[in-house]
């Protein structure tokens, strides 16, 4: 397989990791299984459809027009309105970065019994060092390969022997469990909101340009976005099922409980792969949200961006991710629940979703930018339906976050 093909598929995997199986995604999927068993599996269907559709579209727009997503967000919305997705991205990604660094540190805590707060600054420095020194291909392929350790969840899923017949039925005709409707809705929103966040699309389209995709790579774009999303969705499904079989009913499981469930069927090897997997996906998603913010700011201002530049030659781009690291450490030392931050990050990101989807759809239908690669009408119809559905569902998270006892 050509190096470029490997890098491109790794880009799809890494993008999907940010949505489906970053630390917030792992915890949410575990809670979905341990609290609601199989009744939330249906969320994977619109999640997969939306993630493939919009990831492919953002890659196709980048290839056809030579422009990444944030570049034309400002062009289409104007500089004032584009500040909404820009600041949303900065705040949401900064909060997500705290959670991802905590995910890396929690994996180290589980391995060493030393508090994650001690590990946190080391994890932060390690992530920054990769951003500072590694090429995009190394960063991309390296974290995607390490992230394959999360296949341990898939192996565990097979070994715990979930009731496949019941699962198939729940996928198509989901049952409503006997819990408060607000709690159930909150989990629906958390899952759907996590599957598709704007930073994935900023990252994927900019990554496509970092990988120097050209017109002939449009098929690669389809393959990469589909394989990446399928990988993320299968791992997510596996986590829900393992938690449903091994942890249900448990309203407040910890990451260690999920690790114990994996170890229960795969022994010590399972534990090691679990820790590597959690560390890798947290690192991958941390890199993704840091780079996504740096891409967004540099593209908004029209300055140089990308990992092919030395840091001093793309100073605004490098400054953004460099500043995010100490800020994350400051937030972490306040003692705030880092995983809980992902819920707030998701709510903020949800607010900015229409400001990402609308310009993306407009440009994807503009022949001046896209040539023959404009959206087909079925893609438009499905994209508009999913964008409206997702925006409505995810924006409803805001009042749910305020309701006592729900989150």
């Amino acid at each position: 397989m050509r190096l470029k093909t490997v890098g491109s598929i790794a880009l799809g995997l890494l993008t999907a990791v940010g949505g489906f199986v970053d630390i917030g995604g792992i915890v949410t999927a575990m809670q979905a299984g341990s609290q609601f068993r199989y009744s939330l599996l249906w969320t994977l269907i619109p999640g997969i459809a939306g993630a493939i559709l919009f990831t492919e579209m953002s890659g196709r727009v980048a290839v056809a027009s030579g422009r990444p997503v944030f570049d034309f967000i400002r062009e289409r919305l104007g500089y004032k309105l584009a500040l909404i997705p820009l600041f949303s991205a900065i705040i949401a990604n900064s909060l997500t970065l705290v959670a991802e660094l905590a995910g890396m540190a929690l994996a180290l805590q589980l391995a060493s019994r030393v508090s994650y707060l001690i590990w946190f600054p080391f994890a932060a420095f390690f992530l920054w060092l990769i951003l500072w020194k590694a090429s995009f291909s190394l960063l991309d392929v390296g974290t995607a390969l390490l992230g394959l350790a999360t296949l341990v969840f898939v192996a565990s899923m097979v070994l715990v022997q979930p009731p496949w017949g019941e699962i198939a039925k729940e996928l198509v005709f989901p049952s409503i469990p006997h819990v408060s409707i607000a709690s159930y809705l909150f989990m629906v929103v958390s899952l759907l909101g996590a599957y598709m966040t704007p930073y994935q699309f900023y990252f994927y389209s900019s990554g496509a340009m970092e990988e120097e995709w050209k017109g002939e790579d449009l098929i690669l774009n389809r393959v990469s976005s589909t394989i990446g999303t399928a990988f993320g969705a299968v791992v997510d499904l596996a986590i829900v099922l393992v938690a449903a079989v091994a942890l249900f009913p448990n309203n407040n499981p910890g990451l260690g409980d999920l690790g114990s469930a994996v170890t229960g069927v795969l022994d010590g090897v399972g534990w090691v792969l679990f820790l590597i997997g959690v560390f890798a996906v947290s690192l991958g998603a941390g890199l993704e949200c840091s780079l996504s913010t740096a891409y967004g700011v540099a593209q908004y201002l029209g300055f140089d961006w990308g990992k092919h530049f030395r840091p001093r030659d793309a100073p605004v781009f490098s400054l953004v991710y460099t500043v995010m690291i100490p800020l994350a450490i400051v937030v972490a030392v306040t003692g705030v629940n880092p995983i809980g931050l992902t819920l707030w990050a998701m709510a903020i990101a949800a607010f900015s979703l229409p400001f990402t989807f609308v310009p993306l759809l407009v440009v994807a239908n503009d022949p001046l930018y896209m040539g023959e690669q404009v959206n087909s009408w079925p893609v438009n119809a499905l994209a508009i339906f999913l964008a409206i559905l997702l925006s409505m569902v995810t924006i409803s998270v805001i009042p749910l976050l305020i309701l006592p006892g729900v989150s």
Partner: protein
Amino acid sequence: MNLGVVVLDKQMLDVNHRRCGKVDDLLLETNGEGCLAVKAIISQTGALARDMGPWMSRIMRGVYRLLGITDPHPVYIDWDLVTKIDVVVHLSKSREELGLQRLQNAISQRIIGRIPGA
């Protein structure tokens, strides 16, 4: 031509195809026939902040001063230097000649360039 759609907020590329900021604003003037015509592109160093109100201008001026830019002012690019407009705006001079690298250079020299391995 609808300048709001065709030119404003577009990426600019210099003569060497390097990124050099966005079209932040346009300077218009009335020609002899009483029609409005574009005289220059306004970009960078406070061009946007100026439009966002006095408090934002003050904040940005403070930031620029911290970066060693003592006389922050937007760059005016003569419209005659625009060679082509497609999905980006192409200019006929380098970004250094046009003075479009001040902010990037300041950040590079004052902050990023001082970190080992930059």
